[in-house]
């Protein structure tokens, strides 16, 4: 796995997983009929944020945080699946929220 903090530049063939993005904030919600999307499993928060920004067609990219089963995603999807004994055969439900706390501030806690 790439340690590049930005989007890992690995070319396909890469593993993919079906993701259903949800949010409870109306102002950043995706069109209602947005179904599961296949995304590369090497993605982390940053890559996932770019997808949401792309889908929202945001002029200025908004940093997002992602929650799976109520916990913040701090690894790649791949690492999450492995750590939780899941396979890329399942659909992952990812809840996204505006990232409020700058990463540096969080790190100092």
């Amino acid at each position, binding site marked *: 796995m790439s340690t590049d903090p930005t989007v890992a530049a690995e070319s*396909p*063939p*890469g593993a993919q997983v079906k993701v259903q993005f949800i949010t409870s904030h109306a102002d950043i919600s995706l069109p209602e*009929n947005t*179904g599961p999307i*296949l995304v*590369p499993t090497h993605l982390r928060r940053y890559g996932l944020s*770019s997808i949401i920004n792309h889908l929202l067609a945001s002029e200025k990219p908004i940093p997002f945080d992602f929650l799976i089963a109520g916990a913040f995603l701090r690894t790649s999807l791949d690492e999450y699946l492995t750590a939780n004994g899941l396979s890329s*055969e399942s659909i992952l439900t990812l809840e996204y929220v505006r990232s409020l706390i700058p990463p540096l501030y969080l790190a100092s806690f």
Partner: protein
Amino acid sequence: TIHLEDSTIQSSLSPEEARRVWSHYETVTRDLSLSLTEQLRLILAPTLATKMRGDFRTGKRLNIKRIIPYIASQYKRDKIWMRRSVPSKRSYQIMLAVDDSRSMGESGSGQLAFETLALVSKSLSMLEVGEISVVGFGNTVRVAHEFDKPFTNEAGVRILEQFGFQQTKTDVRKLISESINLFREARNQSSGAGTELWQLQLIISDGICEDHDTIRRLVRQAQEERIMIVFIIIDALRGSSIMDMTQAKFEADSTGSMKVKMERYLDGFPFGYYLVVSNVRELPIVFSTALRQWFAEVVDASG
């Protein structure tokens, strides 16, 4: 024949359960399978019939294309008759490849896959056109029924016992490359010189697979070996269809930074012949349409 061991595959059904389930699927698909058999018979019959052809001095029917040259040549070019040609013997080897991965179970596609398997295998065996084999695939490929074994009810039960939809990967690339080997072996073992052997693979799956470029190359290779592949996509995902599924890709733009690109999943699907089925009742029609198209192309190509 290749048999691959995989400890992750566990039969989820006891023999008694499997027997009960198989007879259930056979019952619910009985009418459909009769209808499919009839349609396939109509498709296959002309390919087995004799053809009028050739240029002969005597024969059964005039070859209209030869009449004008005949007159123009002062009645010298008199091979103006056609005769009924000896029918070429054709045999078929048809492999049903059923997706045994976990996504099939989770999306509810498994049941539809079994119905499809029961329907198609029953119809093909009623037609008695050739040999049928069944393989399961996921992390690995395993042969659940071999070409040289008769396809009885008992065989159906034993096939069911081997599917659990628990495999944690859907390796379609491996399926195609191992299938090509299985077809090669079956071709070598098939009897009868002078018999034209047609090989067909039907993949029954929810259609989610990776590494499309490699798969596309393998499909082309299969085609070169005259193996036809038809992908039957079982579209049972609750709430959303594979027809609307998108995938996110990352591509470098001119400045070298990665940009998101959304694509319709099926636009990059590596199989030329595929059908999307969300109800087993649609299967006889769409499947026979696809086969008719294939046979027409092959008959055309072989003149």
